[in-house]
């Protein structure tokens, strides 16, 4: 990328703005961390007490003893990773079909994909449940894997990136003797790493944070996920907010690691180097 000279005033302004923004976006994190060291009766107060009077470190021990957090964490990882992988694989295939192949009914099918995103999940939850019940998949991880791996979101996202790849580039590859599959694997995939990184982050986060799906489909303790685990500290009449926040802080760490690892693909100039505009 070309070197540009920016005025120091402008740079300083951007930094100040970013720092203020970061402060506001991190307030809930500060609150979560602070609350995770408190007794539940101290968590809510007006005004907010940012520093706990006494530090209840034991919250981070208690959460592992009171619930099967290790099992839930494992399950969350298992589901998030499997679903993300299936999404990456099948969505990238389908997105290539929708953006670079020509076949009858292509636009109609794609419209069907997008249209399903518009329907709130709660509304078609019941037919899905009946289907899973008939397949005897209730209380199995497979139910959530099947229901969440083939959403329209991934196909839509990747298609939007694939259509920016000039057709001439693919044409050249075909002339060089690459099959359609080869073109996809050798040309398109390497060029759209940032898009794949985006889908990885988004898919992982969505599955990791999903509460309603596992709540409806999982009955046994051995199948439950971390988000269900957090809810075990919420009772009808009282909630143990200190423990809830300690678990929530733990639950957010993997998400931030995934984010940090994959956002590295958003580096200016790398992906575009192979393109001739």
């Amino acid at each position: 990328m070309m070197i540009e000279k920016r005025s120091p005033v402008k740079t300083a302004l951007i930094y100040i703005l970013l720092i203020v923004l970061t402060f506001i976006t991190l307030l809930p994190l500060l609150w979560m961390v602070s609350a995770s060291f408190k007794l539940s009766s101290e968590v809510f107060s007006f005004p907010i007490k940012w520093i706990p009077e006494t530090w209840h470190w034991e919250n981070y021990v208690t959460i592992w003893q009171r619930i099967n957090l290790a099992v839930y964490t494992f399950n969350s990882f298992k589901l998030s990773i499997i679903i993300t992988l299936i999404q990456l694989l099948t969505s990238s295939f389908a997105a290539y079909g929708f953006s670079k192949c020509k076949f009858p009914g292509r636009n109609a099918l794609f419209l069907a994909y997008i249209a399903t995103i518009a329907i709130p999940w709660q509304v078609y939850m019941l037919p899905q449940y009946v289907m899973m019940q008939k397949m005897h998949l209730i209380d199995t991880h497979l139910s959530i894997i099947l229901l969440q791996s083939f959403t329209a979101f991934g196909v839509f996202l990747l298609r939007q990136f694939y259509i920016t790849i000039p057709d001439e580039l693919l044409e050249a590859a075909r002339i060089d003797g690459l099959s359609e599959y080869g073109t996809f694997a050798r040309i398109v995939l390497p060029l759209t790493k940032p898009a794949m990184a985006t889908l990885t982050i988004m898919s992982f986060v969505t599955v990791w944070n999903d509460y309603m799906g596992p709540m409806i489909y999982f009955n046994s303790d051995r199948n439950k996920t971390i988000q269900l685990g957090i809810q075990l500290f919420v009772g009808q009449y009282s909630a143990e907010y200190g423990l809830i926040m300690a678990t929530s802080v733990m639950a957010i760490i993997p998400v931030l690691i995934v984010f940090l690892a994959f956002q590295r693909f958003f580096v200016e100039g790398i992906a575009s180097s192979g393109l001739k505009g």
Partner: protein
Amino acid sequence: MKKTIAVFLIALMAMTSVFAGGSQETTAADGTTTLTFAVWDYTQNVYLAKAIEAFEASHPDINIEVQDTPAADYITKLNTQLNGGSNVDMFLIKEADKTKTFYDRGQLANLTPYIEAAGIDMSAYNGTDANFTFDGGTYGMPLRTDQYVLFYNKDIFDAAGVAYPDNDMTWTEFEDIAAQITSGEGANKKYGAYFHSWNACVQNWGVQDGEHSIMSGSYEFFKPYYEMVLRMQEAGTCMSFAQIQASGLSYTDVFSQGLVGMLPMGSWLINTMVQRNLSGESSVNWGVAVIPHAEDVPNGYTVGATTPICINNASKNKDAAWEFVQFISGPEGAQIMAENGQVPALSGEGYLETFASAEGMPEGVMEGLYATRISPDRPAMDKVTEIDQMLLAEHQLILLGEETVDEGIANMNRNYAEIMAN
């Protein structure tokens, strides 16, 4: 192509059924029956585990598998399961007014033949079974009862030199006492009273007389209570609705942090407070009294809810399920509940004494639970949930001063008519 897709679809369907591991044989080879029992907050409701343990000990041929769901989503999940054709055998109905909906769909087993065969005297349930009786059949056994009582903080009363609430108090006296015990400013302020943000915590006092209900349709009977709460907010003798909403405080926190003198709340809080004090999380010095009443309403009239236990009409093990239902809703179950901080729906046999003598109970709990009439907070009628939501919306507007009491009541009346007509 279509054919190929069709073949693929069928193949996939076939494949997924291979993965099937969910279908359980409910009767094992050794003749034991496994029953699924849907509950919420299993770990907090200790009596459930104790009752199951006792039942399994006396019925070695029946195993009970608990399916635990967080309270907030319990009814959503139960509803989905029943609609989806799940074979859960027994369940509690958390929002008792939903019993009617399940009955209308034919999802509840009629218990009357079992009750008659077992010769159970239903009068021991004090009429709470009426809520679960439809077209002459009983579809749920009353399990636990919760009623509104008055919690008070003895330290705040002592500091103000005011006598503790007696078990026969009017709402006018309540308002006066709240003013007397309010003290301090800012972070040190002790409020005389606290009405939680639910519409029930104002509207119940209109329903308390047993003649009106939230399904009455003309809501003028709420007026004195809204006026009272608004007066108290204005005078600063109760925490304002806006502050309760902004702080996110729960009534349990407010009370166990010692911020308020009097809290009208459901009897479920008794056990929570006992646990908080025993664990050392709270050190508040508290007591329980009978809920205040209007001048023209007899003492002992209160509002409450009874939770039923039901059998799924689709259950393949209804007879075995009845064994458990009879056990937990009967004398043995009631005794276990009373020992573990839960008031049973079944009356008599000194259950209240047992309940009140548990470790950590303050003196006078039994007298505070005195009730001659418990009106349901939400009667099991059609559209009661819609009406309740509508009343909540107007409740918020009145207490935030966005509309006057008269405007609010006029809107309630109009919205009621619209909802019922739609």
